[in-house]
């Protein structure tokens, strides 16, 4: 009975969105709660990130790639972190970091591009959607007009914002503001490519009007591309005008060969960047109203390959960070003893459960809004 009620709400939400109606809950969104998505591009190796360090199968599958037990940073009796993630330990100890294990979806697709499309659009494996999941949420429940935008992408790939929503890509705030003087917003009926360009130009002008880009942070941002992305995100978040969601990304996780040094460096960059992000958000007094979540197109194969790397895989571990995150480990440990016929891990937590957590728990919308079906929020948010 309870479940049927949920499904009804979800179906009504979907129909309402499809018909362009504004559902009754559209104005109840709590966009004072900010979402920061961190995309680990290329498919992060979850097994060497969140390590099942007491599991013999892990060492058997990875004679060359396994992180030695004495180097892994133990969190509890079964779970450890890659040594490069040392900077995140204070967050773990403060119970501000949740780890969600075995995240995936049924009938996993092992193509980078198809799988990230599935993640970005929150589709089923055999379903092709064009709009990103956040675009669908914002279409139904837009951020207030005075916000800089619904979403800001630091970089260029719109990902979950693709299609329709008010989302703006910014490489760096200073450059963006300098160039935005050339924007000449026009409002004309048009179609196709021209409509797209006109929309982008309008949104760029509006975003520029709401940004200043010169907040004097005491936080020192790490050098490197990810550190700069974090800095840009921090400047955007510092804007008085507001923003509901920000996406940043770090690239290079497609480690088919020679994985150990590359992965260690990437995780170091990731950890340093996330710690800087936390510090900047604390300065802004936004840490308690920010949820940071990682995602990636897939995890990697459980067994190492012959070239010191790992091929494309399936289920993966992800992080959720924030002042109102309930720290701990969620989801079952990787099913190393239940690999499928291709040597891949079984999933246990649907990635759309994470999205439902954001939509329902974080923004206070019906948790099926924009997802087309009901999913189970993961309990990593404190009230």
């Amino acid at each position, binding site marked *: 009975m309870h479940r049927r009620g949920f499904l009804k709400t979800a179906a009504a939400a979907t129909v309402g969105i499809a018909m362009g109606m504004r559902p009754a809950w559209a104005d109840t969104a709590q966009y004072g709660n900010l979402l920061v998505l961190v995309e680990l591009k290329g498919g992060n190796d979850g097994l060497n990130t969140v390590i099942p360090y007491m599991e013999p199968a892990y060492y058997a599958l990875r004679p060359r790639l396994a992180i030695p037990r004495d180097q892994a940073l133990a969190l509890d009796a079964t779970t450890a972190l890659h040594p490069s993630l040392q900077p995140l330990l204070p967050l773990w100890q403060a119970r501000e970091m949740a780890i969600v294990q075995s995240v995936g979806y049924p009938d996993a697709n092992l*193509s980078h591009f198809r799988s990230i499309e599935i993640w970005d659009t929150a589709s089923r494996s055999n379903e092709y959607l064009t709009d990103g999941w956040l675009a669908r949420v914002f279409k139904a429940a837009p951020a207030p007009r005075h916000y800089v935008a619904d979403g800001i992408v630091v970089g260029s790939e719109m990902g979950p914002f693709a299609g329709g929503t008010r989302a703006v890509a910014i490489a760096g705030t200073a450059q963006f503001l300098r160039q935005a003087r050339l924007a000449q917003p026009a409002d004309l009926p048009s179609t196709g490519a021209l409509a797209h360009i006109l929309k982008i130009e309008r949104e760029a002008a509006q975003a520029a009007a709401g940004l200043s880009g010169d907040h004097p942070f005491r936080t020192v941002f790490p050098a490197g591309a990810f550190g700069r992305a974090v800095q840009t995100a921090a400047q955007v978040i510092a804007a008085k005008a507001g923003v509901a969601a920000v996406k940043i990304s770090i690239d290079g996780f497609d480690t088919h060969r020679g994985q150990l040094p590359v992965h260690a460096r990437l995780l170091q960059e990731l950890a340093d960047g996330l710690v800087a992000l936390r510090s900047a958000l604390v300065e802004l007094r936004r840490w308690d109203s920010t949820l940071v979540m990682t995602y990636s197109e897939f995890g990697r194969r459980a067994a190492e390959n012959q070239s010191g790397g790992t091929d494309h895989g399936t289920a993966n571990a992800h992080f959720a960070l924030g002042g109102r995150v309930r720290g701990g480990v969620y989801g079952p440990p990787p099913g190393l003893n239940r690999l499928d016929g291709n040597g891949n891990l079984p999933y246990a937590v649907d990635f759309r459960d994470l999205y439902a957590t954001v939509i329902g728990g974080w923004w206070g919308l019906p948790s099926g809004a924009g997802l087309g079906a009901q999913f189970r929020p993961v309990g990593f948010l404190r009230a």
Partner: protein
Amino acid sequence: MKSVMFRRILAAVLACATVLPAAAAQLGFDDARHLLNRTGFAANAPEIREFSRMSRDAAVDRLLGWTDSASTLPAPEWTRLVYVPPPRLKELSDEARKAYQRELIGQARDLKAWWMAQMLTTTSPLSEKMVLFWHNHFVSSLRKVRMPLLMYRQHLTLRQHALGSFRDMLHALARDPAMLIYLDGAANRKGKPNENFAREVMELFTLGEGHYTERDVKELARALTGWSIDRDTGEFMFRSFLHDTGIKTVLGVTGAHDGTAALDILLTRPETAEFIVAKLWREFVSLQPDASEVRRIAGVFRARRYDIRAALRELLVSDAFYDVRNRAGLVKSPVDLVVGTLRQFRMTVADPLPFALAAGRLGQDLFAPPNVRGWPGGEAWINSTTLLSRKQFLDMVFRGNEAGMQRGMAGAQFEGDSWFGQFGGAPDGWQRVVFAGQPVSPVTGQGMDALRAAVQDPAYQLK
């Protein structure tokens, strides 16, 4: 030869008389502009006028003829030097390592500048568009391959086959050392194969996603084991002791396939021709390929043994290509915008490098596509960052030597009087050349101010 020509003319005449009157009629100005701009870089008024008097067939034959006669600019000096294996960086002193890295960076810039110069000066823009198309299909990137010499060699291979046989190109690229590095083929050995190339060659280079299974990926990877690189020469090398000689089943075909035989299996499937033709369609016609036309042209492509020229020809004389609904419907790529603007306005350039780097800032860094799928293109070219950067670039090139020019772009000299002169007395004649569709804000006048306003108009981003 003559009889072929005669038959072609006869066929054209018959087609004209029976089904396709448009094909033999003169193109007229707008169709000619459309053809030249989709297949090249911003044609000028005299070229458009010349093509406007041709039939569709004659126009396409002229374009394809240009591809035969085009010459290539001399490549950077170092491309002719003998290959030196990359040093083991850990064994170098700090200074030697830095010097080596500086050398690689310098060579990478030489390469980008060389191709930019080639695109700016070529007599066959279609040749360059096709090389760029294949660079964006059989993707490799300097960011992983690192050695510009190997990327240069791959570029020559793409250039050699760009309007030749797709089958030959597929086989050549599968053995290409830069590709063997980029998709880890060189690390693929029997026992636990590396699946990277095997997956991408089916997903992105031939069949398309959804037309193969995970088992096919593994089996194809086995067939390709042992394909490697000679460390001394940087050339392809087959290491038989790393090759899996066992029986494999690829797309249902079972045998002791080696890499070549396995790749040929991919070419027996109709999906491959359809995948390539649909991609050509999105490049030249519209973002929405017509499924039945794609199947028809793919049939020709296969019947003509994967002759790229045959497929391209079918596409460029098709009614869909000239359909008015497909005008001004594609976003210019950064290369279209940069090269097209400099060619359109006859700007002479002292140094091509800043313009290659400008294309990179707009999202199309030559020899360094973002990932193995290449530049996604279409509307993805335009987001707020790249749109504003485009406007800034256009603002700068029209400032000439004024203050505000940066990084050596000065030297893009525009001669306004002679440029406007090509349009005779027609007051707005230049707008029919510059815009694929209508500008969003009407532009008036004939001076520099009008041009600066025109290139800032959103419609200037379309082709």
